[in-house]
Structures are given as C-alpha cells and as structure tokens.
C-alpha cells in the first residue's frame, strides 16, 4: 500500500528515540530529550532571574510578562482551586507551569521540533513529584490515618457500599491520579508530535511527485495550521497539569466533610 502511495511513514521509534550522545550505555546517558529537559529547567530559572533582576515598581518588558504570569497562576489556578491558604504553593506551581510550557513548546521550535514530554519518563517524573507532594501535604495537614480516611471514604455513602467504594476510591486517588496525570501530558504531546511528523512526511512525499503536487498546498496549509494548534496544546497541557496539581493539593488540604 505504501508503495502505491509513494509514502514511507517512519516507524514510531525513529520519531521519538534519539541516539545517546555522551556516557553511552550507562543510566546517565545523554540524548536530545535529556538536553531539552535541562535547557527547559535553565530557561525557567533564567527567565525569572532575568525578570526579577532589576525589579521596578512599574514593570516593563520581561518583568511585565513574569508578573502577569504569576498573577495568572495566582488568580486563575490557586484562588479557583485551593483558596487563599494555597499561596505558599505559588512558586512551585509557577515554576512547574513554565517548565512544562518550555519543554512542550520545543515541539514547534524550528530545528529542534521535539517535545521531551513525548517520552514517558518526563511526565512520569513530574507526576511522581506531584503524587509525593499531595500525599505529604495531606499527611501533614490531617495526620496519616485522618488523611487515609478522608481520601478513601467519601461523605454520605451507605454503610453496605463502603468496602466497594473504599477500594474504588483508594485506586482512583493513589494510583489513577498520578497515572492519568502523566499519561495525559505524554499522550497529548506524542499525538501532536506524530501529527506534525505525518504532515511533514506527506508534504515531503508530495513535493517529489509530479501529478500529486497539486494537493501539496492543502497539506502544507494544514501543517502550518496544526503547528499553530500545537502552540495552544503546549500551553493548555501546561495549564491543565498545573491546575490538576493545585486541585490535588487542595483536596489534601481541605477534605470534604
């Protein structure tokens, strides 16, 4: 079939696996995803250091962007989900939002064009971090057994349903939460990356065809449009990850009565 269409789609492993550049064969091997991870960390750090270096009362330039984004996290995420006593998590959530946004936006940066979050290790690490934080917050606020009780026993459940509900709630709070958090980010970025790869391969294949070249403009227009769409996805996934983290921390801080 592919010979008929003249289209050789690369296997998935060619699109998301990168050769190891240094420390080959060890667990500390460095490849493109590792480098992008480090670069995103440094970008987040550098952005806020630069923005806060010469802080003025009336913000201009970079300070303006940083302040409005912190304001966005405070009003759009924390106030909506945790409440005023969640302000101590503002630095963590802001840093996480920017880190995920930077690591996602590499998907459409020319010549890099690879989101490191489309390898499962990066979202899994972030999800485990969030899992640890919301559990530690819950244990610190309510005590170990109080936290466990409030997590697995929802209010107003009939007695005879309790064993089943407790099992379901336990699985959904402690296992499905981190897993779905990681899979959501991972699958969205992988899907976006694959879509862009598909249309790029299609454009390249159409370019060398004599007759089929008439559909090239449509394919290319869709590629450009989807690239714009991926900017939205990169932002939205960072936002959703941050807001879900805030929701989980909030549910650990304020149990339902």
């Amino acid at each position, binding site marked *: 079939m592919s010979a008929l269409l003249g289209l050789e789609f690369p296997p998935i492993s060619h699109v998301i696996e990168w050769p190891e550049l240094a420390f080959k064969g060890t667990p500390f091997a460095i490849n493109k995803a590792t480098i992008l991870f480090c670069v995103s960390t440094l970008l987040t750090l550098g952005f806020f250091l630069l923005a806060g270096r010469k802080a003025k009362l009336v913000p201009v330039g970079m300070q303006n962007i940083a302040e409005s984004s912190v304001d966005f996290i405070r009003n759009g*995420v924390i106030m909506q989900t945790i409440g005023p006593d969640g302000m101590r998590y503002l630095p963590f959530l802001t840093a996480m939002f920017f880190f995920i946004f930077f690591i996602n936006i590499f998907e459409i940066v020319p010549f890099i064009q690879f989101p490191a979050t489309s390898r499962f290790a990066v979202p899994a690490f972030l999800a485990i971090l969030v899992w640890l934080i919301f559990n530690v917050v819950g244990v610190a606020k309510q005590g170990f057994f109080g936290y466990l009780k409030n997590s697995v026993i929802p209010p107003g459940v009939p007695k005879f349903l309790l064993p089943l509900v407790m099992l379901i709630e336990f699985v959904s709070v402690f296992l499905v939460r981190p897993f779905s958090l990681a*899979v959501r980010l991972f699958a969205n970025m992988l899907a976006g990356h694959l879509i862009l790869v598909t249309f790029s391969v299609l454009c390249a294949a159409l370019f060398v065809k004599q007759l089929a070249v008439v559909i090239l403009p449509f394919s290319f227009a869709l590629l450009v449009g989807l690239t714009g769409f991926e900017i939205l996805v990169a932002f939205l996934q960072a936002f*959703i990850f941050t*807001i879900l983290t805030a929701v989980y921390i909030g549910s650990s801080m304020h149990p339902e009565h």
Partner: protein
Amino acid sequence: MFDLLVFAQQEAGELAEGLTAVGRGIVYGGAAIGPGIGIGLVVGNAITAMARQPEAAGMVRTTMFLGIAFTEALALFGFVLAFIISG
C-alpha cells in the same frame, strides 16, 4: 475461499501484522467514542453557562478545562494502548 486459506497459511506473519494494525485502529476508535460525546457535553454545557452568566465565565472556563482533562484521559489511555499492542 480455499485460496484465501492457503494465502492465510503462507502469509501468517503478514496476516498477524495486518490484524494487529486493525486491532490498533479498533482500540483507538472505540476509546474515542465515549470521550468525544463527553467532551461535547462538557463544552456545550459550559457555553450555555457562560451565555447565561457572562460574569461567571472565568470560573466556568477553569472548571470546563478540568472536566475536559478528566474526560479526555480515557481517549488518551486508548491512544497509548494502541501503541502498546504489538503483533
């Protein structure tokens, strides 16, 4: 019919590969039905709420994204599962 059976025996590897590809398609297609309807419901109701009470649009939008995120997770599990299936 007989030819088809002979073909199936000869090309067992290719048949398995083809069936795997079909299975992947079915897994993702099946997983996308429910979340598709669900996201439609979530966004549709959010728009209704925003149109009725424009001053609450910010709160509704945040909750809408949360609802989308939870609903979408099922489709994404299907997406990941489709890659995990191998012949």
